[in-house]
């Protein structure tokens, strides 16, 4: 089920909210169970065949967590239990996500003809990663005792289940335990609705609106210089508003249930460096990779050379996390290289004179954006040859179409760029503060001005009116 579907907006969400708050009058546990069951139903709607896998994953990880938290095991045994838990998770992820990729490469190298058809369970990366973090923290002694329903809800919680953000148990489970969250809070529901409306608008009106410009460039066609740039930029903004819209919708939906989700997206195209970009794009993944991969690899503690090696390894694996294909490996490698260059520049580059700082910041933002666009070409292309084909066209200004269609499309893209670069983001508009668990304070103080109310109501209406038959989140199948 998609957030941008009539069935979700007019059936699933109202029923989910009504059941949650109705049961909330009777106690603290029933609404948690309701929400967990609703989340399973949400997952089962499009992926019913993988519900047993999800349940098995929850049972397995909760069992491993129980051994690490509750039982007084010797250090070596504890480590062995953690190893078994993480290995089990990675094995399942590897089989479902990477078996086909490995077999295809094996066939290519050894000219064999093995066939593997395994469908990727939606959300498997998210629920696997959240649970790996849980196991590692349990091993480190950073996990208190959690009830099964709360743990199950933490893993399956539907606003995040299929496309993130990656949740952390220390952030979420205490929220699920709060009694106040089980009572309807009109302020949170209104703020949640407005955030959802903005996200829906980004998805249905902006991301889906620019989608037609992308396909022709990455298909079997032969784009000119300007057409190739239009396609690459259109994809750059499609992905931006698609993912940003999804993140907003997830936060908005969760807020209606009284639960604050972490920010996952903070205007990344305004970044002035690649380091900055990765602090703003898919923020929870960046944090996960930093805390559970880059730092355990040694981070920057073993000297500058190892720092660069660890960065590249982290980004390569981050690339592979996005998809089992060589294009994602190249995308990850490019970002690893960008980060190395950025860190090296920070260390060895000259200091910028104060009067040149605005120009340097502008140049940094442009360079960052162009680097990201080039990397997105690999992210989007079917294979490396196709990506290089598009990039070659982007580097060949001698082939120029610049007809009426191209000019209109460029104007279209300029509007998207203006929105991405100059418009305030949703959390700024709404005053969303995940750490302080506050939202819309300034709106409440100002008694919600009518123009803002009707403008956001129109945004919700246009978001719903913009729902199309052919729409799928592109930052989705992980």
């Amino acid at each position, binding site marked *: 089920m998609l957030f941008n579907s009539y069935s979700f907006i007019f059936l699933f969400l109202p029923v989910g909210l009504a059941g949650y708050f109705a049961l909330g009058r009777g106690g603290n546990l029933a609404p948690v169970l309701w929400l967990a069951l609703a989340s399973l139903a949400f997952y089962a709607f499009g992926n019913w065949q993988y519900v047993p896998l999800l349940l098995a994953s929850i049972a397995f990880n909760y069992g491993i967590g129980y051994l690490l938290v509750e039982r007084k095991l010797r250090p070596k045994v504890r480590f062995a239990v953690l190893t078994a838990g993480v290995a089990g998770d990675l094995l399942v992820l590897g089989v479902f996500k990477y078996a086909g990729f490995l077999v295809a490469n094996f066939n290519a190298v050894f000219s064999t003809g093995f066939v593997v058809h395994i469908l990727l369970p939606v959300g498997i990366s998210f629920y696997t990663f959240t649970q790996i973090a849980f196991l590692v923290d349990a091993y480190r002694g950073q996990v208190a005792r959690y009830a099964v329903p709360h743990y199950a809800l933490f893993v399956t919680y539907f606003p995040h289940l299929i496309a993130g953000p990656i949740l952390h148990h220390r952030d979420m489970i205490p929220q699920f335990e709060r009694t106040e969250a089980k009572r309807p809070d009109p302020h949170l529901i209104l703020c949640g609705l407005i955030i959802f409306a903005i996200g829906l608008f980004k998805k249905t009106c902006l991301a889906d609106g620019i989608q037609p410009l992308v396909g022709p460039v990455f298909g079997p066609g032969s784009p000119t210089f300007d057409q190739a740039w239009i396609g690459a930029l259109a994809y750059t903004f499609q992905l931006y508003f698609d993912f940003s819209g999804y993140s907003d919708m997830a936060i908005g939906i969760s807020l209606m249930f009284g639960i604050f989700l972490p920010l996952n997206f903070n205007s990344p195209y305004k970044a002035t460096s690649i380091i900055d970009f990765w602090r703003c794009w898919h923020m929870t993944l960046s944090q996960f990779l930093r805390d559970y991969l880059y730092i355990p690899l040694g981070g920057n503690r073993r000297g500058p050379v190892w720092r660069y090696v660890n960065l590249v390894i982290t980004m390569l694996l981050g690339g592979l996390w996005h998809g089992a294909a060589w294009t994602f490996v190249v995308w990850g490698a490019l970002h690893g290289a960008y980060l190395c260059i950025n860190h090296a520049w920070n260390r060895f580059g000259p200091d910028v004179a104060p009067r040149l700082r605005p120009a340097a910041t502008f140049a940094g933002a442009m360079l960052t954006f162009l680097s990201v666009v080039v990397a997105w070409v690999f992210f989007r292309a079917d294979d490396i040859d196709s990506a290089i084909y598009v990039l070659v066209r982007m580097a060949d200004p001698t082939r120029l179409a610049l007809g009426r269609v191209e000019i209109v499309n460029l104007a279209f893209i300029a509007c998207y760029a203006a929105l991405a670069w100059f418009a305030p983001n949703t959390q700024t508009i709404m005053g969303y503060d995940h750490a302080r668990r506050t939202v819309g304070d300034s709106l409440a103080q100002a008694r919600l001005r009518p123009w803002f109310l009707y403008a956001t109501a129109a945004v919700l209406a246009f978001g719903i*009116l913009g729902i199309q038959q052919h729409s799928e989140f592109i930052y989705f199948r992980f």
Partner: protein
Amino acid sequence: MSPISKILLKFLCASAFIMLMAAALNFVVDPLQLFRQARPFPAMYSADTRMQDAGLIRSQPFDTAFMGTSLAIHFRQRDIDRILGGRSLKLSMTGSNSREQSFVLDAAMARHPKRVVWQLDDWIFRDTPEIDSDIFLPSGLYRRSAAGLAGYLFSGQMARESLWILARSLPPLEPAIARLTSDLVFKFPIADVDDINALPPDYDVAAGYNARKAFAAFRHITDPVRSRYLADGYEYEAMVRAFERDAISLIARNPDVAFDIYFPPYSVLQFVAMRDAAPSALKTVYDFTAYAFPRLLQFPNVRLSDFRAVKEVTHDLENYGDVIHHSPAVDLKVLQWLAQGKYQVDRSAPLASLERLKVQVDAYRLER
């Protein structure tokens, strides 16, 4: 009720009001003419035929349905009527597959046409999703289901089109808006049903269709980076299944309708590209023809024509915009051949034209 609850209610009511206004506008203007023929606003048409056909079937008079892919998209209805007789309705859809074509034709059968002129080729029978999983075809509009009609009425994109049509119907605004109307921005820019996807009268045919373009397309599709697309979807078993499900079952269900089926005159370069870069796909094409032709000719209401081996057209590359799409002049020839019964497949020798095609493809040598 608390003040914030009142604000929440106002917010929801305001959203609902805007959506209802959009639905009312769509119902009144009815850009697709699903509910009534265009009045009081002049009819405008869209080149998005998968959507537009649902309205055409409801609003246009016809006794002949004309179906096909992009190979049959530029025909003009008045040419079809003049050469073949009757009152035609062009339903051809660019890039369409047999499941889509059969579904749309099935909807058209509710209007009891006497004849179907159907451009078939092997490519349309590739494996395709169920019609309800087809993200490009609004099946609910054809079935007139509640969800389909609600999707039409509560569509923001349609409301924008309705506003545009409404503004264009106002006499003082009409000339300016007509100049601004463009298929780049709006989906309903066509004022005459006969112009849907037809090339404009001032179209430079010689520039659009010539040997240079045909050879450039040939080089492009046989480029090693691209050539794998040539074999996409060519699986014999799947093609036969789709053929039986979509073509044969429709013909069998409508014994009173005459089916004029033709295989279009691709340029020989298409088959040569397959011969050189995707030989297994070419074999599948041949095998599929060997299955499909005798099967089609089992039906007395089918008249089958095969134009793929009409050498004077298919070897003259000046007729082509790429390796398969032929010029409007060939469109007219196709209609004349159909009217004259030329190149009809003989029921006693259903594979004769296929054998001629094989010989031509084997013998063809590229000019370097």
